[in-house]
């Protein structure tokens, strides 16, 4: 029972951890891409990485916090632009491959030993080297605060401050997306998702809208990247393909083209992982599997559970099942 409580606490802790928020933010960005505009961006982690690098490198170079964030957003916007100019004319599946490739290229360049002086190469950049200006901003002061079962530093590297900021950003973004998507602008995006040519025939500049969506979602992704590295460190590999997959999974778990879907999806994604691990750890006796096997087994289960969730709730928790039926023409 005690064990179970520990698991529950851990799940709750991870549900509002900064990385969950970061994933949620990235998923909100992806939602604009895929959920609303239908852009198959398989490189959202690339946007996160660009944002994280630009942010961390700027701060290391001595640029103050807000300009550094701005630089990160601009960098992501430029990345989106560079990526979008040629690729937004491509058919969806091709866009997917191009974006996943571009993200991988960013990662490989970032971790290349040739750029060790700037990006830290395979070591990445340590959190200490860029976190300062952010923690300095905290008005929570030093010391620890306990809320329920959770005790964290008020400011610290991974404390209440970063949680507060991260989730505030999530909240603001949700509101922002809500406002955008109920507007005619959002309607055009959804129209593009359905049939570009039809929208073009109605006199809308599809290319410009797609670019706006790509840039908007990309910069939001970059924001996610910043949040992701604030309590940790910048590691090129950590924002690679698996991260993109996680963002996608979170989005579809929560429900694409819904405002809160990405957020809920991220929470569910991490909670599910911990839950399955906790359960598996508890119920698999040591005599059958050792620690390592049990851990691996729990990951097998996570894979399976993920499949099952999508299978039994394909539209996601918040999605509208009706919309699925017209997906195939």
């Amino acid at each position, binding site marked *: 029972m005690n064990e179970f409580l520990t698991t529950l606490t851990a799940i709750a802790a991870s549900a509002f951890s900064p990385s969950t928020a970061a994933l949620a933010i990235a998923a909100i960005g992806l939602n604009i891409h*895929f959920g609303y505009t239908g852009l*198959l961006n398989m490189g959202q982690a690339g946007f996160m990485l660009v944002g994280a690098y630009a942010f961390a490198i700027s701060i290391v170079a001595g640029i103050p916090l807000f300009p550094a964030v701005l630089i990160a957003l601009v960098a992501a916007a430029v990345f989106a632009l560079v990526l979008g100019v*040629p*690729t937004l*004319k*491509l*058919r969806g*599946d*091709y866009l*997917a*491959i*191009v974006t*996943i*490739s*571009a993200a*991988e*290229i960013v990662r*490989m*360049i970032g971790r*290349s*030993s*040739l750029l060790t002086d700037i990006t830290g190469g395979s070591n990445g950049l340590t959190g200490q080297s860029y976190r300062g200006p952010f923690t300095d901003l905290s008005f929570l002061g030093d010391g620890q605060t306990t809320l329920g079962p959770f005790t964290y530093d008020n400011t610290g590297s991974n404390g209440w401050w970063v949680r507060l900021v991260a989730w505030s950003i999530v909240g603001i973004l949700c509101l922002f997306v809500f406002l955008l998507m109920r507007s005619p602008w959002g309607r055009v995006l959804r129209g593009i998702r359905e049939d570009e*040519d039809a929208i073009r025939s109605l006199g809308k500049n599809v290319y410009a809208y797609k670019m706006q969506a790509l840039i908007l979602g990309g910069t939001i992704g970059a924001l996610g990247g910043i949040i992701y590295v604030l309590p940790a460190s910048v590691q090129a590999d950590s924002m690679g*393909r698996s991260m993109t*997959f996680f963002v*996608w*999974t979170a989005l*579809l778990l929560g429900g*694409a083209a819904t405002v809160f879907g990405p957020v809920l999806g991220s929470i569910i994604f991490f909670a599910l992982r911990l839950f399955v691990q906790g359960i598996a750890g508890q119920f698999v006796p040591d005599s059958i599997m050792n620690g390592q*096997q049990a851990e*691996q*087994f729990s*990951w*097998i*289960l*996570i*894979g*399976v*559970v*993920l*499949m099952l969730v*999508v*299978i039994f709730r*394909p539209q996601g928790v918040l999605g509208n099942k009706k919309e*699925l*039926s017209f*997906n*195939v023409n």
Partner: protein
Amino acid sequence: MTPFTQRTRTAGLLSSRRMLAGLLLIGVASLGLMGLGATSASAATATPTTKCVADATTGCIQGTIKQSNGDPAVGVKLTIAGGDAPETLTTDAAGKWGVAITVAGPYTVTLDTTTLPSGETLDPSVTNPATVTGGLGRNTGTIFKLSGSGGSSSGSTSAPTTGDTSAATGGSVTWERFLQQAASGIRLGLLLALASVGLSLIYGTTGLSNFAHGEQVTLGGLLAFVLANQLGLNLFLAAFLTVVVCAATGYFQDALIWKPLRKRGLPNTQLMIVTIGLSIALQYAFQFFIGAKTVRIDKANPVTVEIGPITLSVQSLWAMGIAVAVIILVGLFLLRSRIGRATRAVSDNPSLAAASGIDVDAIIRLVWTASAGLAGLAGVMLGLVLNGVNWQTGLQLLLLMFAAVTLGGLGTAFGALAGAMIIGMVVELTNLVLPGDFKYATALLILILVLLVRPQGIFGRRERIG
């Protein structure tokens, strides 16, 4: 039994048996050769006369002098001064010299150039006498490089500067190197093509991007490991069984997962997430059952053949041959056969295909089975050619496979071949001109560039509007 009857009997056997025998023969022969090589190598490094072992109270100043052709330079005299007392040494049969010291500090090592083997001189870059800082509990040394030509031992003063002067591409770019790498490129391309055909087929028929395809490749390699290495089955038999089992996994996967999901009309994006889940589950299943280490299907060292300047292993040649044959067969099958046409029809318009009397589910089942089988075959051959498989071999190649498939135009078998060849070549040739670090990145960049010029892929076709 007379030789004659024997011959008639062999003629009746499957040709694969004969190939197998041939392969075995070559293997045995090369084993013998290698044994010879090994003994001679160990003979060369045998018993140095002076052996110094560094410990807390001793340090070693030591080195090996080699002639320009790599043979040890025997009988070269050196004087070591500093610390305790000057000492004169002669290199032993292995060209080694060494002295134990008990005091840390700078030592001067002087080589008596007159004792060098005839025709050898000190390389101009070497400082003679050389100063080394000896320390206790460590080895210290200096290299006296010899050159065969009559270069003077006079002038040079400074120690050699850092690193190699050649460009970031590393080493000299020679024709031999180019050809060798091009051959590796073709080999990688073909294997990649074989691995991606299934991906392309599944995409082509169902529109699904199967992110678990990499794991199907891994499965092939790991199964072959279990069968050939663990259970000791003959390699060909193991490969055959692997393909059969892998194909079966495709069959049951479709029966248990994909068909029911198709029935429920899940969109492809959702299915894609399901494949990601499957991929995760399979990856950890591999770790669970086989472990995270790299395993080798065939413990034996590769037996090589030289074709001009190119050295390739026999297994590579086999693998390339099989890959070409299989891809051509699959391609022709799709283009020419009735089932192949049905496959394309299903990919175009499943409900109309059903209305034409095609059993859509059966076709898709066939595609899954074939894809998994082909992936398994590719896994076996990749495992052999790349000298090992582990739980993430396929995963690491998946992006290259997607790139290949896309480059060739989504959903066509020959497109996958063409795309894979380009990707394979780019990957293996990148380090001729760019830092090798970027070899995958370059391949992906090429993909992006090609798509800019031909947005529909090399073999893809544009759609009509309206």
